[in-house]
């Protein structure tokens, strides 16, 4: 499974739709303080099924919906779509798809929807899709800002999950 593109609209500071195309190798994201770089990381965690608002630096999940700025009012929906290329290492029910697009939506009234290739699915289906690939939202593959020292500062039993992910 390879990352191919990320579309964000109405999520945190991304009021207008933005698209990131990923190539092989390293994609660097740069910009001044507060411009929205870590919000992109939050968007990836969110579309992969993150359930804790606190983990996305919010109080309640609605905090991820664009809440307005000097020149714009708040929006009613947040939507993030992560498109993956099938390189053979995907769960069997998706083996025939060349692209797998995972989408998550949240409305102000609290309603939330998940899609895989435009078919509405449950959260469990999204979790199952990512589970086998080693990119669970808590795993070693996503290091949030300021957390790199955490692995060394944490207690020995808190580090066990790192090996469990490999097992």
């Amino acid at each position, binding site marked *: 499974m390879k*990352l191919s593109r990320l579309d964000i609209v109405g999520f*945190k500071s*991304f*009021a*207008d739709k*933005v698209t*990131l*195309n*990923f*190539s*092989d*190798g*390293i*994609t*660097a*994201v*740069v*910009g001044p303080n*507060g*411009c*929205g*770089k*870590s*919000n*992109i*990381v939050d968007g*990836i965690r969110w579309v992969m099924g993150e359930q804790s608002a606190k983990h996305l630096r919010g109080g309640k999940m609605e905090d991820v919906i664009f809440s*307005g*700025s*000097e*020149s*714009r009012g708040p929006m009613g929906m947040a939507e993030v779509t992560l498109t993956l290329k099938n390189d053979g*290492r995907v769960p069997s029910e998706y083996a025939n798809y060349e692209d797998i697009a995972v989408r998550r939506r949240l409305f102000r009234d609290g309603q939330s929807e998940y899609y895989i290739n435009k078919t509405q699915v449950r959260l469990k289906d999204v979790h199952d899709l990512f589970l086998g*690939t*080693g*990119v669970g939202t808590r795993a*070693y*593959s*996503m*290091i*949030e*800002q*300021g*957390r*790199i*020292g*955490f*692995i*060394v*500062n944490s207690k*020995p039993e*808190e*580090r*066990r999950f*790192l*090996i*469990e*992910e*490999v*097992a």
Partner: protein
Amino acid sequence: SRDRFQEAFNATNAMFQKVFPRLFRGGEARLELMLEGTDDVLESGIDIISQPPGKKLQSVQLLSGGEKALTAVSLVFSIFLIKPSPFCVLDEVDAPLDESNVARFNELLREISQVSQFICITHSKKTMECADRLYGVTMEEPGISKLVSVDLRRAEKVPEGSIIAP
């Protein structure tokens, strides 16, 4: 599953012992299973023993901010090399590192990026230069994030005055 855990631990430990001296240009490190009060590996803790070059063996707590970050990166990269995950997101992990450690970090990042895709958020010019593709995030309209893309493979080095060049 105890066997699988033990196997995963052994593989990670062996790789960590290779990656750490690469990043620190010497020294040594290893992982140890802590079986306090239980003999079941699935209940154990993992201890990190880290000894930068020229220093005495000490508890990881005494390491400096940069040494802790580099030790953690060695561990994350080791796990990556054993069980490559499709992609990895690193949000300013190079912030505590000095210039020479940023260069070593970038060198190893370049190597591992042959196996997995990386998304790297950084303020460091050196890390930007070793990327294949660069996105600049701006807020020209206050409060609204927009993207500017530069594909480094084709483009010249980011011109000094451009929106990306910090």
